[in-house]
C-alpha cells in the first residue's frame, strides 16, 4: 500500500493538496507545479540561496529541500510579501529606493532571508545583517545597498 498520508501543505496562506513524489525539491514544486517562479534557482546545490523560502518560520534552501518535509507546514515565498495589486513591503520598498536590486535573480531569496531576520530580530546590528546573509550570494551588488535597505527598514519600524 502506498503511503496514504495526505500531501497537504500551506503555501502563502492557501492550503494545497499535491500529487508529486515527496522527494521532489520544494523549489521544483513551487516553480513547475504551482507557477510560483518568483523563487529562483541558481545552483541546485543549496549554496547560492536564490531559492530561499520560509517554512514554519525557518529559512530553507528550497532547491535541496524535499517537498515531503513541508507537508503539514506553512511555506512562504516572495509572492507572499506583497498583495499583487498592493504596495510593496517596507523591505521591498527600501530595496527599490536604496538601489539594492541589480540583475535581481538573488533578490527573492535575499528578501525571504531578511524578512525572516527582521521578524526574529526587529533591530539587527549591521553584523547581524551580514551574518544572516551568509547563505545568500549576490554577484552584482557587493551587498552594501542590501544591508543599507535592511537597516533602513528596521529603523523605520522602530
Amino acid at each position: 500500500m502506498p503511503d496514504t498520508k495526505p500531501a497537504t501543505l500551506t503555501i502563502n496562506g492557501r492550503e494545497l493538496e499535491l500529487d508529486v513524489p515527496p522527494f521532489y525539491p520544494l523549489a521544483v514544486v513551487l516553480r513547475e507545479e504551482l507557477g510560483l517562479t518568483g523563487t529562483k534557482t541558481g545552483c541546485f546545490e543549496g549554496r547560492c540561496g536564490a531559492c530561499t523560502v520560509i517554512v514554519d518560520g525557518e529559512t530553507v534552501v528550497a532547491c535541496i529541500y524535499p517537498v515531503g518535509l513541508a507537508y503539514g507546514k506553512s511555506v512562504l515565498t516572495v509572492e507572499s510579501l506583497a498583495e499583487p495589486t498592493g504596495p510593496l513591503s517596507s523591505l521591498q520598498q527600501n530595496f527599490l529606493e536604496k538601489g539594492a536590486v541589480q540583475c535581481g535573480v538573488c533578490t527573492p531569496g535575499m528578501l525571504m532571508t531578511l524578512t525572516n531576520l527582521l521578524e526574529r530580530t526587529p533591530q539587527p546590528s549591521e553584523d547581524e545583517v551580514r551574518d544572516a546573509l551568509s547563505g545568500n550570494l549576490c554577484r552584482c551588488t557587493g551587498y552594501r545597498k542590501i544591508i543599507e535597505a535592511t537597516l533602513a527598514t528596521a529603523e523605520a519600524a522602530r
Partner: protein
Amino acid sequence: MTAIGESVPRQDAEAKLRGTAVYGIDYEEPHYLHGKILRATVPAARIVRLDTSKAEQIPGVLAIVTAQDVPGRWGFATVDQPLLADGAIRYEGEPIAAVAAETWNQARAALKAIELGLEPLDVVGTMDEALAPHARLIHPDWESYEMRPSFPREGNVATVVELERGDPDAGFAAADVVVEGEYHAPRHHQASIEPRVCTARYEDGTYVIHTSTQVPFGVRDGAAGYLGVRPSDVRVIVPTVGGGFGGKLLPTLEPIASLLARKANRPVKLVNTRKEEFLSGCPRENAVIRIRTALSKAGEILAHESEVLMDNGAYGGEQPFVAGLSPLIVCSNYRTDSIRHQTKLVYTNTPPTGPFRGVLATYAVFAVERHADEIAKTLGMDRIEFRRQNLYREGDKCATGQVLEGVAFEETLDRVEELAPWKTMTGSKKPYRGVGVACAIWNTNSAPGGSTIKLNEDGTASLTTGATEIGTGAIAQALPQIVAAELGVSVDDVFVSEPDTSVGLFDGGAQGGRTTYMAGTATKKAAGEVREQILDVAAGLLEADRGDLELSDGAVLVTGAPDRKVSLSKVARVAQATDGPMVGSGSHAHPPIEFESGCISGSVINGFTGATYHTHLAEVEVDPDTGQVTILRYVVAQDVGRAINPQAIEGQIDGGVLQGIGYALFEDLRLVDGVCVDWGFGTYRLPTAADMPEIEIALVEVPDPVGAYGVKGAAEAPIIPVAGAIANAVADAIGKPVNSIPLTPFAVLEAIHS
C-alpha cells in the same frame, strides 16, 4: 533636463522585487522539450565510436544531435570550434551530443544510453606544456582554419600581438636602474547566479531563440554561422537576464537548442547546471605577465618591455580580439616612448576562456601597479610621488602613440587624497598593516548601436533598441532618463521594449561599459529627431516661434507665457492625423581614432575610446599567524565622464570592487591536468556579505567629447584596479613582494616566510 544626474529607481525593480519578472530560467513555451547535453568527461581524446541508436529508443526522446547534424566550425576570430565535438575532444566539458525529450528524466536517461568510445590523448594541460618543443598540437589542422582578420599564429599559439615603438634598446642601454617582475593570475569565473539558459523553436523558416544573453546580435550571428543560415533567419529575444559579467557574451547553448528544436519540431529549453557553468563557462584566462622597465635615477621611464601569456583553452572564441588590448594596458599608465611588447594566446586542453568584466585588465593592472611599487621601492621614491611624476597627463601618448585627451589621473589621485590623505595613511606604520594604491586607464567599448523612439498618442514615449539590460541599469535607468530629459516627459512615461534582433536596430551588446556610452548616445540622437518633430507641430498649434518653445512636464510651453502650452498627447495625435505616427531614430558609431600605424600587429584595437581613469586605495591588516587578509578601508575615485544616475554607478562600483576582492584574495578556478577541480560553489567560493568592506566613492566627471552629455563607460571598470591595490597593500603590510594572486592565507604565509 532634470532627469540627467538624478538617482531615479530602476524601471524593472518592482517586478524583480515581487518575483514577477520573467527570466530566461522562467521562460517556457507550450509543449517544450527538455534538452540535455552529453559533455566530455576527459580533456583530450579521439572519439572512435559514437552510437545514439539505443538512446533513440528511450521513450519520450524526440531528437538527438551530434556533429553529423552540424558539420563545420565557427568562431568570432579564428574559425576553430565545432558546435559538437567532431572526432576529437579538446576539453573536459566539451559538448559531444545533445538530446531533447518530453521530460528531464527521459533526456537524462537518453544521455546515459549514448555509447561513446574514446582513445585517450596526451593532455596538454598548461601553457608551459603547450609551448614546449614538440608539444602535441591541439589543433593539428590549425593552418587550414580561416581567421578574420588574419593575425600571426602558429601551432598551439592561437595568436600573437606585438608592439614596438621608439627605441627600447637605447632606453635599456642608458638606464641607471632596470626593474623586472613576473606576475601570475588565476582563472576567474563570472558565476552569474542565473546560469546560461535558452529556449528555441523553429517557425516559418526562422529560428526563434529566447535566451539569457548580453549580446543578442552576437548570438544571432553565431547561431546563424553554425546553422548555415542568414543572420536574419535567426531571431533572438532576451527576457530578464540574471547577471552576465561577460559570461553570457558568446553563443553556447543557443545553436544547440535551435538544432534540437528543428529536428524535434518542438520548442526546446536548455539550462546549464552549475557544474556545466563551471566546465564550459568561458572564465577569465589564467595569465603570466613579465615586465622590465628601464629608469633614470630621477625616476624617468626610459624604456618598457613586456610579455604576456594568456591561456586560451581549447578554442579561440573572442580571445584573439581581447588579446589585442594587452599592449594598451600592460604598457600603460606611465609615460614612455620606447616600448616593446608581445602577447601570446595559447591553446591548451582546458575549457575555452573568454571575456569577464574588465577582461585582461584585471591582471594587467595588477602586474603594472605591483611593478610600479617595486620601481618606487628600488628608486627609494614615495609610491604616490612616482605615480604623480609618471602617470599619463593631458597630451601624452599611450602605447600605440594615440594622443590622450581628457586625461583624469590627476583628478582621481586628488579625490583619493581628499578622502584618505597619503601622509596620514602611511605616516605611522603599524605592524602587519599596509596601504596600497592602484591606478588604471580603461577603454569604453565603442561597438555601434541604434535606437528608435516613437511618441505615443497619450504623450508617452516608447524606446526600441537592441541594447540589453543585464542588471547594470543602463536600460532600466540611464536610457529612459536620456529620453525623459530630451522630450520633457517623466521617466515613468518612457517604455523600453525587450531586445529583439528582428525589431531593434543593431547593438554591440551589454559589454565593456558601452550601453550608456554608445546606445545612450544613439538614443539621445533618436530623441533629438522626435524633439524636432514635436517642435514643428507645436509651433504651428501654438502659433509661436520654434525658438521660444520648451518641452517640460509632458507638454510644449511658450517660454515666459505659462498658459500657452499644448500637451504632447495632442501633439502626437495631430501629427499622426496629418503626417502619420511620429518616430525618430538614432544611429551611432565612434569616429576612428588616430594612432601610429605600423607599431602594432595582431590587434584590431589600436587606441582608447571613451578612456576612463581610476585610482583605488586599500588599507589592509594581515594576520601573521594565519595569513588572513582583512580589508580595513577601501577608497575609489572613478572618472565616469558624466554620471547619468549616481546611485546606479555606486552600485556598479560596489559590485565591481567586491568581484575584484574575490579575485585578489580567493577566487581561483583550479585545473589539474586539464580537469576542472572547482565545479560548484562548495569549492569555488564567491564573496559573501562578510567579505564586503566599507567603500568610500568619489565620482570624477571629466566629459568625453563623443558620448552624450560627456558620458563614458562606468560599470565595467571598478573591478580592474582592485587586485593591484590590495596586493600593494599586502606587500606594504608584510614587507615582501606578492606577485601572484589570489592572496590566499597560504600564499600570504608563504610570502611572509620567504
